[in-house]
């Protein structure tokens, strides 16, 4: 009886399996935004801040956010009920799919802030307070200050850029 696979075939199957593993390891490189985004999300939410991917917060957080738009982190972001319903449905359908949110131990970050999530703080732990305070950054909510692809949902390291006003020393430290 001949062997089920020739050694050559086995090599290729092995390589394909290895590639598949690599591809999932690179999942961070794709866009975190769903393929289709309601116009209202861009108009209503992204007029004041980055179009945050629904993937980055659990469903419970989005539900609370959409229930309290009148007091939205110090701003009135109130909307008509129909738009609230439309956006809530889309957010719920796409919530929490980012792998570190799925793996998260606690259900929701403090104050439902993406920037208070354990994974967010860990990934940004080496950034000095002075960098966050730069006029070109202002706040951790300003993803696009450093993540050039933020508005398209891309946050991988390849697209990082220096925010304006970094000192030479901070530039040196950037890639540590």
């Amino acid at each position, binding site marked *: 009886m001949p062997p089920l696979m020739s050694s050559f075939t086995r090599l290729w199957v092995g390589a394909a399996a290895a590639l598949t593993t690599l591809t999932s390891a690179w999942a961070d490189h794709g866009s975190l935004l769903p393929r289709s985004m309601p*116009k209202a999300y861009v*108009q209503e939410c*992204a*007029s*004041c*801040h*980055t179009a945050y991917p629904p993937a980055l917060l659990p469903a419970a957080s989005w539900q609370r956010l959409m229930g309290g738009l009148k007091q939205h*982190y*110090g*701003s*009135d*972001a*109130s*909307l008509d009920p129909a738009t609230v319903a439309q956006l809530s449905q889309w957010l719920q359908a796409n919530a929490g799919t980012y792998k570190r949110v799925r793996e998260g131990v606690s259900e929701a970050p403090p104050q439902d802030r993406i920037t208070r999530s354990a994974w967010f703080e860990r990934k940004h732990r080496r950034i000095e307070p002075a960098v966050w305070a730069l006029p*070109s*950054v*202002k*706040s951790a*909510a*300003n993803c*696009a*200050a450093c993540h050039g692809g933020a508005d398209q949902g891309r946050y991988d390291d390849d697209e990082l850029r220096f925010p304006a006003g970094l000192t030479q020393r901070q530039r040196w430290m950037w890639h540590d």
Partner: protein
Amino acid sequence: MPTMTFLLRPYAAAAALSRTVLLIAGLALGTAAAWAADTSPAAQQARFTAEGRAPADAERGRVFFTSRQGGEWSCASCHGNPPTAQGKHANTGKLIKPLAPAFNPMAFTDSARVDKWFRRNCNDVLKRECSAGEKADVLAWLNSLKP
């Protein structure tokens, strides 16, 4: 049976075509709904002046726009002073298009949008809605800003 399939195909093609037409029509409608373009900055000034039943005053509008009203922000905190160039959200740093109509042809051309942003932003700056007179004054000032 094969003949039946053959006969049904034109209908399927027609259905697909009509779906595409519907989709395109839907997209066009969506865009129209997104920006009503149903008004002009001058018409908005006239509307608030009529509601406020007093002549609008550009200088009063300038002072109102650029001063804090007890809260942390003035209108200028995000829109800039004068709001003839790109503004920047005071919290998030998100860029905001110039508010003065002479520097942004989209400004004050959608009445629902005008109402929505006055409602939200007045609440942020004054912790209340703006009066019609205040809106008329601000419009008078914004409309007076020219390159």
